[in-house]
């Protein structure tokens, strides 16, 4: 098929990491590419492209979605959180800090998606069981760490967030 020279665009209005954003997109634009290429938010990555690995995880109205298989169009009038939105005033979110403290980061390619998924996990289950952690993170692959330290990081983050009543989930 030949790419049409006349492509209709859609006006998008959304909140990204708390800020209002207005943009013009093609209907077929994927959320991952919109965030990375149009907004310059490169934290979300493309890996498997079939919704299995989780490197493209974005929080859409707080729920994790695969940016590689979600149309940017779906974000209209909704709120998007990316990894870039977690640090407030230079202070790391407790989940980010826990990942560092527990040595749960190696190459870093899965980290953005993993941290965001943990954020949504702890919002639903502030004191998650191991089974709940695994059910949530089953769709976020990591090839480097072997997951043990990620489990530790989740539990540490849960503890910190519970005790400080810290940053809103």
């Amino acid at each position, binding site marked *: 098929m030949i790419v049409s020279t006349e492509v209709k665009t859609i006006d998008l209005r959304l909140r990204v990491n708390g800020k209002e954003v207005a943009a013009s997109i093609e209907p077929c634009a994927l959320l991952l590419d919109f965030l990375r290429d149009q907004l310059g938010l490169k934290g979300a990555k493309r890996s498997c492209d079939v919704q299995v690995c989780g490197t493209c995880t974005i929080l859409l109205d707080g729920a994790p979605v695969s940016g590689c298989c979600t149309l940017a169009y779906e974000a209209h009038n909704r709120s998007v959180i990316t990894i870039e939105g977690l640090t407030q005033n230079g202070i790391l979110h407790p989940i980010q800090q826990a990942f560092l403290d527990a*040595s749960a980061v190696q190459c870093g*390619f899965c980290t953005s998606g993993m941290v965001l998924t943990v954020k949504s996990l702890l919002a639903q289950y502030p004191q998650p069981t191991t089974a709940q952690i695994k059910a949530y993170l*089953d769709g976020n*692959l990591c*090839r*480097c760490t072997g997951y043990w330290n990620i489990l530790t990081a989740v539990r540490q983050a849960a503890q910190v967030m519970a005790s400080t009543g810290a940053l809103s989930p």
Partner: protein
Amino acid sequence: MSSTRVLGSNVPRVDGRAKVTGQAKFAGDLVVPGMLHGKVLRSYLPHARIVGIDTSAAERLRGVVAVLTGQDILELKNYMYGHAIKDRPIIAFDRVRFVGEPVAAVAAEDAHTAHAALELIEIEYEDLPVVATLGDSLADDALQLHDMSALRAGLFHGLGEFQVGPGNVCYHHDFERGDTASIFSKADIVVEGEYTFPAVYQYAMEPHTVIAEYDSDQITVWASCQHPFLVRAELADLFELPLANVRVVVPYLGGGFGSKSYTKMEPLTVALARKADCPVRIANRVDEAMVTTRRHNMKCWLRTAASAAGVLLAREVRIWLDTGAYADNGPRVVATAADAAPGPYRWQALKVDAWGLYTNTAPAGSYRAFGATHLAWIGESQVDEIARRVGVDRVQIRVNNLLRPGEEVRPGGKPLDADLVNDIRTIAKHLDWHAPKAPDTGRGLGISLLAAGAHPVSTAIVRLEADGTATLLMSSTEMGQGVRTVFSQLVAQELALPIECIRVPGGDTQKTPYDRSTGASRSTTLGGTAVQRAAQDVRKQLLAAAAEVWDVAPEAIELREGMLWHADQSLTYPELFLRYFGLAGGEIVGQGRVQPTGEGQGSYATGPVFWEVCIGGAEVRVDRDTGRVTVNKLVSVADVGQALNPQLVEAQEMGGAMQGLGNALFEEMLYDNGQLLNSTLLDYHVPSIKDLPERFISSLVENEDGPGPYGAKGVGEGSLAGVPAAIVNALGELGIPMTELPLTPERVWRSLND
């Protein structure tokens, strides 16, 4: 001596914050001004002659800047590459040899256009007979995939006299000592078997990504590559440029594991950029990455002879490794597999023959712990079988036969530099070896050696600045293992500086000095030694400068907490610089280097650099009705000489073990006549958090018996290779012999019911 104990402590990763905030840049995050989008058209046939390519419609598409085909590269004097064997064209020109081989490439203004242009390229193929399997490749009447007489050694062949063939043999490695035939004919016990090992995909989560720019006589490449200097050399050779005119810049890698070692997508991207006269980015999708590199699949015949008392006498091995359509690192994998086949035992006789064979499948190359992962489970399962037949405990039989430190592992090679008996006893202890077991539960362990370190050439430069900060220039690639952190620790230790004062930029062949490669568990040992020497060089100059300023002997001066001390006097480094250089400026530059004729602790002239201990233990439960294997416990030992950062060592152990688990239980690339059937993660299962064993224990062993800084040796591969051996042996204890990996439920079920 500095009192700040930086080494041996769990210093947080220096790149941790960047990664956890999404700021760390990988190749796919970089934007080069004017960069075009490149896409590759790949062959859908496993073996075919290219009769004709018509790119005219694609070239006419608005937004397409260039289309590259084989015809374009034929104008180069050198268009064949391959570090071991130059058997690979930059892009296919007369025929395609595997499904996925690049046949054309498009550079366009946007990704949509590039994608659409691919569909406009017309190619006429003429099918050729397919050499799909090892069996096909070995057949007497097999079609030869390469004109062997035309092949040349690669720039980094490194395996003695270059020879290829006969038939489809890419490389043959063999050695022999003693009289195996005689021993086997007389031995009380002979165990023999045929074994199959799968093709496995490394799955570094970041697929290969390259941006290339070709500007008159300068090439710049930003690439997800592990060995920038080897890539530089090959690019310089292909495009006939001086080394200094080729610049390879390496951002953070999203995993490597060998999948980004040596040269992969760089020559193609450079050729496309050259034709487009514009920078171009090519980013593999995962299904493209899976046909760019993989682990060698293998068939093996192995037999072991032993006495009735359980003394191991002789081993004979034949190994056939499927290297795919092009050699890549095949020859080295063959040699390493041959070296690993005997296992770490005393033998009266050995006979090992290993062949790498060409087939019409994607090229196989390096993947973590190659060779040892291929062979350990086989040899170790036979040792277990011998133990059962002679009625000796499986740990004891190993204790009786294992090499001891200082003993010869292979003639002319470095003697054993690890206490294997202690390692195996540690594994047994953590497995609760003698404790009662639940039904259908088995325990197993395995031990092997990997010739680690690759080629020992590394260089480092440390620049101490007038403000008391230091920049470390080195070219080990940060792919998650923590190399920038450990090296910062080495500099911090020598110069008594806080870690935060040390900057470690990424590899850039124009700026950071030569390091041969990042892989083979070599970075701490070799790169680290170079870094340590560079820091020591700065230290020496620093002390000399202070000695001059204070007019005392350098030996009387101490470095502590970022300052110089003598009697009741002290100077910060900035204060010293001011006094010594006469201004708030100047610099002290130190360099350090490691090469094969190095002096000092542990000569590097004798290979291997060190023997990496590949060891693992497992306790598993089998569901006999479905064949499903559940791993209760995995155990490993990190015999690392000295753990410069214990937390990072443990991290390598855990990651390696889970890759080993995947390799052992379910990872397998499935082919049908050269077609890869499972090329997405939907059909190729990579371990997820749900696959974790209930427990994982890794013990640190620090005997300071390595040639690296403070007696360190490398780590990272041993825990992977140990897992298949341990699980196979755990199943063996349950009376379930397995001769084929992975141990899918169906295979285990079939073994139970055969």
